[in-house]
């Protein structure tokens, strides 16, 4: 093939020609359609992930379990504290009564000594 022939072919191939009627509108319409389809598909795809689908339910369960555990813990601690308080009062009562016994004994002995001296 001669160089002139190549030039001619290129000129023919690259010559300016008008697009068919309505081409630009069709292209724009298709672009718009494709864009909207991509967006809806991506949201749907994300929603179809099992993790995300169950996430709100899981979050609710976690919140509920945490709340219940906290309440149970609080109640247990309250019961423990009440029992501890009772134990404290019992221990102090016993201690007080034993101190009183010791005091009475000391007093009676001292009284006895005074009587002996008299």
């Amino acid at each position, binding site marked *: 093939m001669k160089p002139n022939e190549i030039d001619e072919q290129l000129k023919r191939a690259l010559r300016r020609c008008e697009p068919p009627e309505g081409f630009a509108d069709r292209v724009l319409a298709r672009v718009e359609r494709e864009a909207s389809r991509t967006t809806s598909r991506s949201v749907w795809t994300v929603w179809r992930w099992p993790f995300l689908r169950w996430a709100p339910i899981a979050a609710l369960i976690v919140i509920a379990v945490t709340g219940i555990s906290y309440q149970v813990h609080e109640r247990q*601690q*309250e019961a*423990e*504290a*009440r029992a*501890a*308080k009772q*134990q*404290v*009062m*019992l*221990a*102090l*009562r*016993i*201690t*007080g*009564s*034993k*101190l*009183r*016994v*010791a*005091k009475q*004994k*000391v007093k009676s*002995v*001292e009284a006895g000594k005074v009587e002996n001296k008299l």
Partner: protein
Amino acid sequence: MKQFGIALLVIVISAMGARAQDFKMPVNLDRLAAKASETTEVTLNGRMLKLAQKFMNDEDDAEARELIKNLKGIYVRSFQFDSVGAYSDADLEAVRSQLKSPAWEKVVNVRSKTDGQNAEIYFKGDNPDRIDGLVIIAADPRELTVVHIDGPLDPSNIEKLGGQFGVPRVEAHPKSKPAKAGAQ
């Protein structure tokens, strides 16, 4: 190096000394529970005392709350027996052996031959304004009680202790001479 060794030895000895001052309820006392018709056991460590304080908000609890505020523990073992001679003096030896001078001082020692009611009170520490611990041994022919209050107690609190909780007040005189009383 030698100085370091001596310093270490001093630290170890002081630590051992401090540990030796600590009183622990002897295990053999708990064995008496098997012979007892009634047993009262109170074991309250520092954590439990703090927990109890949370629910001592009533006006009636104010003094008890103040009393236990700085305590490290309260321990009570009390046994009531159906028969005389269910326990012996040897059972108390493990208690008394821990209450040695200079850490502990016996401030009351009552031994009665008439009714067999014996009482011993020991204070810990040598600060006249503060008692670092209290042990009471109250022994009747049919009852034995050991009380250990661990932690700082104001002498006035001991007075309160005797006066509150449904029993009359007792006058406490820390560091006073032991009242070696009674028909010993």
